[in-house]
């Protein structure tokens, strides 16, 4: 099986799906001749032409809105927002339009679009090239929010998202693009939306996370394993709708839960998971549910030291695990 970077896996998904399905096209800023600012769509313009790889004006609402319009005519658009920080101008289109089209027309219209957006810190992106904006969308029925953590999942989940009959917001962690490699098959395959993956089994603490934080969490789990702390690590993969069964089954088994995300603490998905656990697994708890998240400041600072201080890492996660184990 060929090995690909996370970025190549996403590109491979786009190429394979565009080859298989003529309805699929991509649109966004700089996605054409340049191949995207991260080069995710590099070569697609040459392979599929200007008609299916469309350079758009700097108009996020226009990009997503145009995708919605094309989907109404039966196409399968994949819109790229250059950075998740700039998805805000398109929020009305995603939440008020795409997410509600099926519901508001009682199933007469559907809106199968994918909105891709690179997110996350750690590349000196400062306030406006670093944000985690997934929580904007994780309380929107009608929408699906997907965040892959491995190259294999990145391709399989993206193809599943394109084929899904409903709108999907697909966040890609920028730090994974070139640092994460893994086996990624040629050709189309899907990883089902809405299902979490247990990446490491354990008996003492359930750790729920996604994206880049999965890898830091797995490292942390190995660190504390030597100290006799047995951690189960669950990769959520789809943040909305959540895989409640997997989350609850895990915490009923371990009795302790830690949620790790790069998004801000307040209003992040961790709060929802914590509420879910206290509602449905209260009597299994042997400690308060803990969240480890980025501090409640707008985003990481440009200053290197402050950026490092802002970022979560394996040591910080290991520390939280030790604290929870000692409770």
């Amino acid at each position, binding site marked *: 099986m060929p090995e690909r970077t996370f970025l190549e896996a996403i590109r491979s998904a786009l190429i394979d799906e565009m080859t298989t399905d003529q309805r699929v096209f991509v649109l966004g800023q700089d996605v054409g001749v340049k191949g995207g600012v991260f080069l995710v769509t590099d070569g697609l313009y040459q392979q599929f032409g200007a008609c299916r790889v469309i350079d758009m004006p700097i*108009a996020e609402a226009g990009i997503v809105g145009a995708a919605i319009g094309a989907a109404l005519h039966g196409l399968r658009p994949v819109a790229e927002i250059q950075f998740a920080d700039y998805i805000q101008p398109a929020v009305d289109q995603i939440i008020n339009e795409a997410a509600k089209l099926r519901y508001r027309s009682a199933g*007469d219209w559907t809106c199968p679009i994918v909105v891709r957006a690179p997110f996350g810190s750690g590349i000196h992106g400062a306030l406006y090239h670093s944000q985690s904006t997934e929580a904007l969308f994780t309380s929107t029925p009608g929408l699906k929010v997907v965040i892959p953590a491995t190259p294999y999942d990145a391709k399989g989940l993206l193809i599943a998202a394109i084929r899904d009959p409903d709108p999907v917001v697909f966040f890609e962690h920028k730090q994974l693009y070139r640092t994460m490699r893994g086996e990624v098959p040629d050709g189309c395959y899907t990883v089902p939306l809405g299902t979490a993956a247990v990446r490491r089994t354990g008996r003492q603490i359930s750790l729920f996370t996604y994206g880049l934080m999965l890898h830091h969490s797995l490292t942390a789990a190995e660190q504390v394993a030597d100290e006799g702390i047995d951690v189960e690590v669950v990769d959520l993969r789809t943040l909305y709708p959540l895989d409640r069964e997997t989350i609850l089954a895990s915490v009923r088994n371990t009795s302790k839960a830690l949620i790790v995300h790069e998004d801000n603490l307040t209003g992040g998905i961790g709060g929802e998971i914590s509420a879910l656990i206290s509602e449905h697994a209260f009597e299994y708890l042997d400690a308060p549910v803990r969240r480890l998240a980025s501090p409640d400041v707008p985003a990481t600072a440009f200053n290197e030291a402050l950026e490092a201080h802002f970022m979560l890492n394996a040591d910080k996660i290991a520390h939280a695990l030790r604290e929870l184990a000692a409770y």
Partner: protein
Amino acid sequence: MSMQTDASLAPPPANDPALPRHRQLGLSDEQVLAALAGMQRVRNVDDRLWQLSRQGKAHFVITSAGHEAAQFGCAWAIRAGHDYSVPYYRDMALALALGQTSLDLLLHGMGKPTDPASGGRQMFGHFSSRALRIVSGSSSVGSHIVHAVGLALAFRITGEQDIAAITFFGEGATSEGAWHEGMTIAGVQQLPVVFVCENNGYAISVPAHREVPVRDVATKAAGYGMPGVIVDGTDIFAVYAAARTAMQRARSGEGPTLIECKLHRLRPHSNADDHSKYRPAAELTALAQHDPIDKLRDYAMQHGLLNVERWQAMQQQLKAEVDAATLAADQVPNPPLESLYDHLYGSAAEA
């Protein structure tokens, strides 16, 4: 009496200037009478919805009174079920002109489960029918413009010819970012889409001179690389001429057009509004002169298409029709409560 800012968009020259205007445009007497009946039908539904709102049977009414000629005029240029129409909340007359019925509109206004627009989910004014290619919209002003642009982009991608999208909005929407973005994309790509502004001079209570920085919305078109046209929106023939030209341009690959229909809102914005609070009394008194139904009725009588007896008979028949439709809509029971959760997500099978 159309006013073009672009001379190339003048209606086709009349074969015989002596002919009535509808004949010059290739419209039959029957088409004119059907439009008149349709406009009156919509007005009756409008009236009925206001009545129902006071009985607590319709919780929201938004009027199309005064806009009927603009919407019926455009509808003549649209092939319903082929071209896509992306309307806004003021377009009840358009929905009816494109094929929806009084009953459809009353079911929508009363929020019934058989409401074809939304199954009772959307408040009144969100017209939709996939069969007629009337696209469902939200209540976010201006956000639907980009959907029409996206549809036009889809025709470009699939290579389909002889098809266009047309979208409607008030002059208030032209302040919205999404409107600007949609116009920009359409202009850059020269897409097969027509933009119709129904300028009634008010964004709810704010008069046009406080919301639009130029006298004519049509002049904004120049900034987006497309022609802008001004027409009298109470003159159904002027609107039709402009819309027909614009749709033909779009379908033949000549790019987008912005049409500004200048007209008057005859009633308050909605049943929750009192326009005497912000419109001068003299203006309100003068509104009766701008009723597009009166205009078309007078035209029909002048040209011998209609007489007083026939007009009265038509009105009686239309009243009986709306009464029957009201009764039928009122009898539709509420949906099962579990249906609240229907149509949230599709199944993998439909993909």
